[in-house]
């Protein structure tokens, strides 16, 4: 049987599913000659490297200099081009925050940002490379659109649509090894419109990013085992938020739990809470995310388990809110 799998940073290219969006960008690049790409020594890690392979003259690697990266992107946009910039979320939202806000958002430039390794998806790298604050930071910048796609396919959709979406866009993804939820791109993705993945009447789970996949796993089990009717909303666009979908969930299911790979403070949970409070509604409400702390070191899958963002954690939270007991599958005999 094959060897244990030795790999280097270059092989990551072959292994990840994030290449889907890289390919989409190339296809767009063929149709739109004004599209250019930029990165900060992370072309290969962020998949924008595919664009670089196809259009080397339209790609700029500024080396490890993120403040410069976004400044240059702003300049390119001002000269009439459509820049796609990719680097890690931590450096986009924090290191270059001022450039993103003052150079790009304040001047309302058509710069599309693909921020990778958001949340705790770069688990082993530790806090310096995590970003559990980016949704909070980015949505506080006027003119910025904030999208957290559920998987590689949704990222491809977001990239396609942001070309014609006015102004700066921040698309936040993981490291590329996240589980794939969608089978294809034809499910009616629209920026600003939540996708109802499962209809339900007992409780609503509002999710973004990897929690979408896990919430659907949990919903399936809750339906089959516990007889619960769970609504799952893929709230991929945090700003502008689909307030209608939120209010519908509040009035129709009266229980809402928000799951996100982000600090509980300031992200999707807070955005949803703002809508509920603004409209004078009340309902059973819970925000689940990173509990205002810096994440532990660990593989991201283990971190999701720890912070209760995986299917098991979501199950636990829902059952707690619904006050229910459950039965486990205890058949551990090997099938022979």
């Amino acid at each position, binding site marked *: 049987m094959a*060897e*244990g*799998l*030795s*790999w*280097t*940073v*270059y*092989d990551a290219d072959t292994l990840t599913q994030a290449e889907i969006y890289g390919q989409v960008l190339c296809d767009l690049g063929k149709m739109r000659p004004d599209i250019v790409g930029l*990165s*900060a*020594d*992370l*072309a*290969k*890690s962020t998949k924008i*490297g595919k664009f670089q392979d196809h259009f080397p003259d339209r790609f700029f*690697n*500024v*080396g*490890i*200099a993120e*403040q*410069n990266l976004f400044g240059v992107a702003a300049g390119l946009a001002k000269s009439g081009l459509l820049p796609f910039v990719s680097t890690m979320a*931590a*450096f986009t939202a924090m*290191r270059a925050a001022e450039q993103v806000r003052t150079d790009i958002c304040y001047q309302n430039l058509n710069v599309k940002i693909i921020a990778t390794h958001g949340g705790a998806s770069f*688990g*082993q*790298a*530790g*806090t*310096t*490379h995590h970003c559990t604050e980016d949704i909070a930071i980015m949505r506080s910048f006027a003119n910025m659109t904030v999208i957290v796609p559920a998987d590689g396919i949704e990222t491809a959709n977001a990239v396609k649509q942001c070309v014609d979406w006015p102004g700066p866009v921040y698309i936040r993804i993981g490291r590329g090894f996240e589980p794939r939820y969608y089978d294809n791109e034809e499910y009616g993705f629209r920026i600003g419109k939540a996708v109802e993945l499962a209809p339900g009447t007992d409780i609503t789970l509002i999710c973004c990013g990897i929690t979408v996949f896990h919430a659907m796993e949990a919903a399936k089990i809750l339906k089959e085992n516990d007889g619960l009717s769970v609504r799952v909303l893929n709230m991929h666009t945090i700003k502008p938020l689909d307030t209608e979908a939120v209010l519908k969930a509040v009035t129709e299911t009266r229980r809402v739990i928000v799951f996100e790979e982000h600090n509980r403070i300031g992200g999707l949970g807070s955005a949803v809470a703002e809508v509920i409070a603004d409209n004078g509604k009340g309902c059973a409400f819970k925000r689940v995310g990173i509990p205002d702390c810096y994440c*532990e*070191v*660990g*593989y991201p899958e*283990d*971190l999701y388990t*720890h912070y209760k963002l995986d299917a098991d954690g979501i199950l636990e939270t829902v059952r707690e809110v619904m006050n229910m007991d459950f039965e486990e599958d205890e058949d551990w005999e090997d099938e022979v």
Partner: protein
Amino acid sequence: MALTKEELTLLADKAYQARRDVVDITGWSGGAHIGGGLSVVDMLIILYYKYMKVDPKNPDWEDRDRLILSKGHAGVAYAPVLARKGYFDFELLKGFNKFKSPFGMHLDGNKVRGVDASTGSLGHGLPIAVGMALGARLQKKSWRTYCILGDGECNEGSVWEAAMAAAHFKLTNLVTFVDRNKLMIDGATEEIMNLEPFADKWKAFGFIVKEIDGHDFNALADAIEYAHAEKSGPVLILANTAKGKGVEFMENQVKWHYGGLDSELLESARNSLDKAYGRV
């Protein structure tokens, strides 16, 4: 002053041990920045075993020398050096990268004894080092600050902001190294963002530059002692190194910036090191 034969043997032993540790950790952690870890080992060894005044039993000792590994991703090399020096039990490193370990790609200064700053985001180390050096001087302390940067890291503007300040404030109690292995993630440094004439840039910013072979202990010793003695301004030790030094299949390979090793490659790496250090 030339190193004695005993000192050289000791340093070589420690360096061999450190490189073996880097390879082993890369094995059990699922992946690490092995290339850049291996290139910086000799600098770490000579600092910890010859020049730095530290007390592993007392990591917060006020008058200790400080080290800032600005190229924080070399944590895979720094951690075992600290462990072997006595800061903590080596066995803790078995949890490298694993859940709740204080040891991940970038060492957490809040959790790991002996780490003076939590680095990892490039370009942060030199400014912090400058602050430390200034603080030492203000308090009339004689401890020194050592800062090791990566060469790709010098793309970051904040590095040059700090360099300007170091020269402006004539920080002679700061010794700066660049691990010049000439490679970064997307390719060679000179292809991605040209650094040359690199030494001239540091000189232009007000540093005295000593360019040496970063794997030659005698050259390192001379350069460090020069830096200690120099009174006119900060010294930059431009250490020319090989990324992946010691493991034949990794040396000077861009792709081994970061990677994982299965049981077979692990053995190959260990054999390569044994050969390089004449331990066959």
